[in-house]
């Protein structure tokens, strides 16, 4: 799935790219065999843009985003193929030392569960000053503490000076996620990776955290990769969306395009399964079948073929892996029969 056969160069205006991930293949070697987590995922991220990566559990969305940071434990993970260019530098072949330099400074990660992402034995202040100073030893402890208090105030934590004295267990989940965001933006990174930032939180707090993320991003002008399985979160925050299925990006488009004109049958089915897509009182739609197991050899055709409503028994779907087609400017989909998508 390297170059799209119908690449329409010249049609798209040249767009600056901050991060470009190309044909990424990541496997996990386990006792039971090789798990194919990511099978040729490609996506790119423009400066200041928010890219939502959506997909169900195990579709490879976290692994493809996190492999950019070098934080995928290896072994068991193995990056088989692919590249991830940040300013022309391939992060997948960069030394662990170089990646460490980049983490925090250029790329910062916000994790899913704020309950476990803070070290229980240190105060908030101690951890924040550490996060600030680890990237810049020239900052004095006092200055780092002042900055930490300032950051806490900016992420909407009242009485930040007092909070700095507290341990993580004294803060609520939402507060902790605010602290994590404050730590992530402390060194003004150019890329934020938010891995399911609201999944572990109460619904009421989720909205606040999403607002805060949008605010932080606006202030930093940072590009964001937002990993989620929640289409609502995507609709709210993302500029563009990459839909992943079984380790591949099956469709990418601007968020409005994707919601209004889904081209890939999986995207179509996914949107149809939203509660909002079904009139009141009717049964909700669900995609028949289950995703393929990532363990063992990959089937040759399209991974979605067994569950696909568009396939209609055609053999090509199970014999040939679909290429990624430019279906419209800046809208790509990996389906042999994309032309059959409803207009």
């Amino acid at each position, binding site marked *: 799935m390297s170059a799209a056969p119908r690449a329409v160069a010249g049609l798209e205006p040249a767009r600056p790219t901050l991060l470009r991930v190309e044909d990424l293949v990541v496997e996990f070697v386990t006792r039971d065999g090789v798990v194919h987590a990511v099978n040729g995922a490609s996506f790119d991220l423009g400066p200041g843009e928010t890219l939502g990566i959506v997909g169900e559990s195990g579709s490879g969305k976290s692994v493809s985003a996190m492999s950019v940071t070098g934080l995928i434990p290896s072994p068991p993970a193995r990056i088989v193929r692919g590249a991830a260019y940040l300013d022309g530098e391939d992060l997948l072949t960069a030394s662990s030392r170089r990646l*460490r330099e980049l983490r925090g400074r250029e790329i910062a990660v916000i994790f899913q569960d704020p309950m476990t992402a803070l070290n229980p034995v240190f105060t908030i202040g101690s951890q924040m000053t550490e996060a600030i100073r680890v990237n810049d030893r020239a900052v004095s402890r006092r200055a780092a503490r002042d900055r930490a208090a300032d950051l806490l105030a900016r992420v909407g934590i009242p009485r930040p000076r007092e909070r700095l004295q507290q341990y993580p267990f004294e803060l609520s989940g939402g507060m902790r996620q605010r602290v994590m965001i404050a730590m992530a933006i402390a060194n003004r990174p150019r890329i934020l990776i938010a891995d399911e930032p609201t999944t572990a939180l109460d619904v009421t707090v989720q909205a606040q955290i999403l607002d805060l993320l949008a605010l932080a991003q606006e202030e930093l002008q940072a590009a964001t990769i937002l990993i989620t399985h929640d289409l609502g979160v995507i609709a709210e925050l993302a500029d563009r969306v990459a839909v992943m299925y079984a380790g591949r990006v099956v469709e990418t488009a601007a968020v409005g395009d994707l919601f209004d004109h889904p081209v890939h049958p999986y995207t179509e089915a996914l949107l149809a399964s939203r509660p909002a897509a079904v009139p009141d009182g009717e049964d909700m739609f669900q995609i028949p079948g289950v995703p393929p197991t990532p363990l063992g050899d990959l089937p040759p055709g399209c991974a979605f073929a067994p569950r696909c409503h568009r396939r209609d028994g055609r053999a090509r779907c199970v014999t040939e892996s679909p290429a990624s087609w430019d279906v419209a400017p800046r809208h790509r989909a990996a389906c042999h029969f994309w032309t059959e998508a409803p207009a």
Partner: protein
Amino acid sequence: MRPASDAVAPVEVPRDKTPHRDTDPGPGGSRSASARLRRRVTRDPLAAGSAAVLLLVTVAALLAPALAPYDPDVVDNSVRLAGPSRDHLMGTDQLGRDILSRLIWGGRVSLITAVVPATVALVAGSVLGILAGYVGGWVDTTVMRVVDTLMSFPYILLAMGIAAALGPGLFNAMLAVTVVTIPIFARLIRAAVLSIKESEFILAAQGLGASGWTTVRRHVVPNTLSIMVVYGTLQTGRMVIAAASLSFLGLGVQPPTADWGAMLASGQASLRVAPHVSTVPGLTIFVVTLAFNVLGEAVRDALDPRYVGDLDAKAAA
């Protein structure tokens, strides 16, 4: 052992201002570990008692020359196996030596043979455990196979081997006890590191740019610290017994030097006529070991920030 100075003082702790749980961090929540340890020890009578016992034994051992009423090694045939009296508060042994004096002087030997091996084993075992657990791979395999081998070695057998090779004595006894204790710490700390290594806060810290060394120093070690201290204290109690056992068997301190284990052994023959000769050092060993164990528990509670709320609740009750 310093917090004990508070323990012997009357338990008069100023009550904290009414805590406002919802707005205020509350008392204790944001205190230093040593402050929490002090609180813990002063409010828990068992912990306070243990600290007091250990303080007493330590002070007595340090001030032995001034405190001991008699020379511990001087033989007086006129008062052999005498029971407690005004002259000899805890009686005398089969050679007429003052038991209280020997107990005080013996405390020096017993504490050293307990604390030094426990500390050395703690440090060495923790370094090995962190190395094995954090680095993993062949380092882990190598370290842990050596540890397994050492662990299957009874310390008395090792002490006998060392005594046979190098001669019996205090240092060799300590060496034997240390060598067989290192693996216990190494195993424990490795297991703790393995689980801490997988914590999300380690990944989060690395996601924000922490290096491997920073990760170990700031996140791995502090999270194993409470295990180290608690188990170190508990092991010290075990060391008291181990050292006494070796002396009892004649593999440790050589006569006439006073030592609790040796005293226990020397009273054996006269157990029927003068039970105090054995029971006094025996009870001392028991009480000191118990004190180490109880204090270990208290230290655990104090070092774990998650227990603080619990402690506050207890204090308020």
